[in-house]
């Protein structure tokens, strides 16, 4: 692919300076505005004697009970946030790192790690505000830029018992892992600075709108806050997996195949690393799904169990399909199956029963195996680490199965004007919801395809996307980072 660069080779310095200038220009006026109020003081202890004193004591006790619940919820949410971050680093970093050739292991891991650093800053400056600030049905606004108004006070629209700041940092971890997932599609051939620019823009123009539509105030697809097309997406099947997975496919098609693909054998250099990464993903996913209950109560339990069951059944589904097709169940297949199940159960986690979770997992495991083993080979695209096959496909089928298996007995999400609970999914009698799921999925697909294409074109023109042939042969570790992952050959 010919390079059409407008930015000369001082690109790194250029971006750093541009970034700092933007931060400075944004920080100066906004920090001159008033700060948001801090946490309220606790109620003073009630005094002795009298009817009024009695009701004061009850009020104080109620406050203490509420505080206890808040403490429990906040403890779980902070833990969940940590678990989700662990999914990116080292979970995804190891999972992807093990799948590439030795000469690209560091470059691949660096892509995930870079998201941990860069998306955090972006989120703080403007990302959170665009995703979760008040705005319109498609995007938030800049009212919460620089986290203005995001303090220790809860926001009842999002989570009434935890500080908004906890909610913000929890959501940040999702914003981090989503672009990191896409890196699987262009593994082993994308320039580091191109990846940075592309994923920063992607986070702003694809992730933030999608997150806003499904989870933000006034969002078009928000099932809890009265969106026009309420899409049941408990923990981000559409927001995280469909968007990243479909974007991954677009990237794989745009960037083209790796040199030598598919003739040259490019087996994973360390299935061991991928195994460790996948297991960390499984454990971390409890934070991803059960944490999306935004509280430590029964719904978190439901989501936790559904998540686990989905992963287990999918591992069996994929392994079973592989055993039948290839005669042996591979370890990489088994762990990939578990990941596929986790992806598929993500939109469903807080809406389905444990048995439904088993069914969803089993279906997703077999389906994603077919996508990766058959469909990819038939169409010949080089989705190097199967970001589309697992996340795009798994997220899509999971979102659709959610419309089938969602049960109001698990989560009474739909209530009529008089407060009576209505059916959630198809099996419960709500066939219409499947249509809404389709709308949500379709919007995710369209946003991902259009957004990614436009951004790829821009970044290609400005920086150039793909490394040169020499750099690709040399490997990303040396060409992009000047490092080697394993320095074993040199004697002491």
């Amino acid at each position, binding site marked *: 692919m010919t390079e059409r660069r407008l930015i000369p080779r001082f690109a790194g310095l250029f971006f750093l300076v541009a970034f700092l200038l933007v931060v400075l220009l944004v920080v100066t006026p906004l920090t001159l505005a008033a700060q948001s109020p801090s946490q309220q003081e606790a109620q003073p202890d009630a005094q002795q004697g009298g009817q009024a004193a009695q009701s004061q004591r009850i009020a104080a006790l109620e406050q203490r009970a509420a505080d206890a619940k808040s403490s429990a919820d906040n403890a779980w949410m902070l833990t969940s946030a940590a678990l989700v971050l662990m999914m990116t680093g080292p979970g995804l970093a190891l999972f992807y790192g093990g799948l590439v050739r030795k000469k690209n292991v560091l470059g691949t891991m660096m892509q995930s790690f870079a998201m941990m650093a860069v998306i955090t800053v972006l989120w703080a400056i403007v990302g959170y505000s665009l995703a979760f600030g008040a705005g319109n049905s498609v995007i938030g606004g800049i009212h919460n830029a620089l986290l203005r108004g995001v303090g220790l006070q809860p926001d009842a629209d999002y989570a009434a018992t935890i500080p908004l700041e906890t909610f913000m940092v929890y959501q940040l971890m999702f914003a981090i892992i989503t672009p990191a997932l896409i890196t699987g599609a262009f593994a082993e051939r994308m320039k580091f600075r191109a990846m940075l620019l592309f994923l920063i823009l992607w986070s702003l123009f694809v992730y933030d709108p999608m997150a806003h539509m499904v989870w933000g105030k006034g969002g078009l697809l928000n099932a809890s806050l009265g969106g026009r097309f309420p899409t049941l997406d408990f923990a981000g099947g559409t927001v995280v997996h469909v968007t990243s997975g479909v974007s991954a496919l677009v990237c794989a098609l745009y960037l083209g195949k790796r040199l030598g693909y*598919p003739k040259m*054998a490019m*087996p*994973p250099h360390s*299935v061991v690393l991928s195994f460790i990464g996948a297991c960390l993903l499984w454990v971390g996913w409890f934070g991803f799904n059960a944490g999306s209950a935004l509280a430590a109560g029964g719904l978190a339990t439901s989501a936790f169990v559904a998540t686990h069951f989905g992963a287990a059944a999918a591992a069996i589904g994929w392994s079973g399909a*592989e055993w039948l*097709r*290839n005669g*042996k169940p*591979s370890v*990489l*297949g088994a762990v*990939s199956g578990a990941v596929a199940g986790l992806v598929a159960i993500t939109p469903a986690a807080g809406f389905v029963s444990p048995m439904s979770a088993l069914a969803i997992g089993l279906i997703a495991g077999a389906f994603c*195996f077919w996508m*990766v*083993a*058959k469909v*990819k*080979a038939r169409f010949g695209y080089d989705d190097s680490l*199967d970001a589309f096959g697992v996340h795009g496909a798994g997220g899509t089928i999971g979102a659709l199965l959610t419309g089938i298996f969602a049960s109001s007995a698990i989560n009474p999400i739909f209530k009529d004007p008089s407060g009576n609970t209505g059916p959630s999914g198809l099996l419960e009698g709500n066939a219409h919801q499947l249509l809404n799921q389709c709308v949500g999925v379709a919007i995710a697909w369209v946003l991902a395809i259009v957004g990614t294409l436009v951004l790829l074109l821009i970044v290609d023109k400005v920086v150039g996307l793909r490394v040169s042939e020499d750099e690709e042969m040399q490997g990303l570790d040396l060409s992009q980072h000047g490092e080697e992952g394993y320095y074993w050959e040199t004697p002491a």
Partner: protein
Amino acid sequence: MTKVEAIIQTSKLDAVKEALHEIGIEGMTVLEVRGHGRQKGHTEFYRGREYTVDLIPKIKIEMVLADDMVEKSVQAIVNAARTGKIGDGKIFLTRVDDAIRIRNDERGESAL
């Protein structure tokens, strides 16, 4: 002086080493190599893609010996390394012009 290069199955290294020590061989170099003769490789599956691995791991032993030791060492290697199946390996013999001991400049057979 003759250089003896023996390519053998990885599982036979210990047996061959012991057999060589028993006949009094004192120096050898062992390398981990990959290769194939008529032995076929195997297929592996990663994410549904089939890979043919046709370079098989082997062990290569290199020794430079005085001419009167060569035939004894060849017999020792063959007896220790043979299984009778394809993949047992091969031995090559080549003439060596000279050998030098780095420690004290000794040359010829006394350097071996």
